[in-house]
């Protein structure tokens, strides 16, 4: 019984991590940009939900509206970031980490100045409140919703990358910018689209998080380290790996937490990941290269 409850808790935490990491698997995984402001894009998504609810009122309608709007808001922020800063830094990926960290600081402070330092509240719609009872098990509806949302996002992204030329183009540009240009692919356009989608996913994640936690200027900072770990452990640029890693991390955290404490669990999860990368330095799913070729 407890085991099943924990299993669900783990899956559900995994789906949250997955939502947070999915966009990163594009911007970090595919494009090599270490976007520390990803968490702040999530925050922007969450505040979008807050604003939408303020305008629309009805919690159900506003949630459904906020999801696409959060995507657009996150995406536009990403686009702006790409167009002003990132595009001049593709050849120095590690620097993007530092620049976007600066951006993250500024965005947090902007949120503080615009919405105030205290947390704000987004109400969950009635149809998401409470839990579904199965046997003695209570599965919170919000958690089920997020799980579903994560699956939808993964499938949509996988399809977009696999079934449309976009995916190929993104990977081509990342691997060899000059060659892509010289093959007739606009690397600027591709970069922007990729960054828009990746950041948009952060916005969606942010909207989803309003169902679970606090909505404040530091919302993103709580997730960013974990989200990067998921991408790294999954194998950079691998959606499949990201999904597996997120799930595994969620389960690990929840089971460790169950048998120890939340703090110890977090440390154990980190240690496990470091140990795991010893075994598979390129992450779960990795692309091989011919070393120097």
């Amino acid at each position: 019984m407890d085991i099943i409850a924990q299993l669900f808790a783990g899956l559900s935490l995994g789906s949250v991590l997955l939502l947070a990491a999915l966009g990163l698997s594009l911007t970090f995984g595919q494009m090599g940009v270490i976007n520390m402001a990803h968490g702040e894009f999530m925050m922007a998504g969450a505040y979008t939900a807050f604003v939408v609810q303020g305008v629309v009122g009805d919690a159900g309608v506003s949630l459904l509206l906020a999801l696409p709007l959060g995507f657009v808001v996150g995406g536009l922020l990403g686009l702006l970031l790409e167009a002003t800063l990132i595009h001049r830094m593709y050849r120095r990926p590690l620097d993007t980490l530092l620049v976007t960290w600066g951006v993250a600081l500024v965005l947090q402070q902007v949120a503080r100045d615009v919405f105030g330092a205290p947390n704000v509240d987004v109400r969950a719609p009635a149809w998401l409140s409470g839990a579904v009872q199965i046997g003695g098990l209570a599965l919170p509806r919000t958690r089920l919703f997020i799980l579903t949302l994560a699956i939808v996002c993964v499938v949509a992204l996988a399809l977009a990358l696999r079934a449309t030329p976009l995916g190929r183009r993104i990977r081509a540009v990342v691997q060899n910018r000059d060659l892509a240009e010289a093959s007739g692919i606009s690397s600027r356009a591709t970069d922007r689209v990729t960054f828009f989608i990746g950041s948009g996913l952060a916005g969606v994640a942010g909207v989803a998080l309003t169902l679970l936690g606090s909505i404040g200027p530091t919302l993103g900072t709580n997730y960013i380290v974990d989200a990067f770990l998921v991408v790294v452990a999954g194998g950079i640029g691998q959606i499949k790996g990201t999904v597996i890693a997120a799930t595994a991390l969620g389960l690990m955290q929840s089971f460790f937490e169950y048998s120890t404490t939340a703090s110890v669990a977090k440390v154990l999860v980190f240690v496990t990941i470091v140990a795991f990368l010893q075994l598979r330095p390129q992450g779960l799913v990795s692309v091989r290269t011919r070393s120097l070729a």
Partner: protein
Amino acid sequence: MLELSGVTTGYGRTMVVHDVDLTVPDGALTAVLGHNGAGKTTLLRAVLGLLPVRGGTVRLAGEDVTALAPHKRVRRGIAYVPQGQQSFGQLSARENLQVVADAHGRAGRRRTDEALDLFPALRELLGRQAGLLSGGQRQQLAIARALVTGPRLLVLDEPVEGIQPNVVTEIYDAISTLTAAGSLSVLLVEQHIGYAVEHAAEFAVLTSGRVAHRGQGGGEGASADARKALAL
């Protein structure tokens, strides 16, 4: 087809190519020869727009493309095979061709087939990750990829480097066929003077980034002429 006048370009503030005039007539092959480090690759990169041109103009079929982004030039009919067996390493060989064919719809798919006919060995490798192919296989893939765009002007930087001899023959035969049909113009950088001069209508020898010598290809004395110019 292509007309360079007074092209000067380089890296940062260091100019490597100076004041180069060069034309590639429609349906003809123009060869650029030169020592290591003479600036041949640099010149081609400027033709593609991968390096900013600091002086002079690049005209493609009469249109001034000097300020155009590379991918726009490609859409106007240039295709480029860069030096050094470059590919999109993590894409499969098939995807390497598809990513280019995507922009061309049905024609892209047809030309993919045609390109693969030229390199039958590639057909069996289509599912493989391009980065794991052998050097020569990658180079074959690079030429195929360039052909898929259906270019009017093919820009080749030492295209047969690393390719096995019998395939080299086929590549040059194919180029001859295409140029002879008038459907393709070629700008070729080649160290094998033999090929270059044999197929070229004209050739230019680059020394320290400047055109030091021009000659007519094809004829009897052409090869000797080129070698003499190179020995400068």
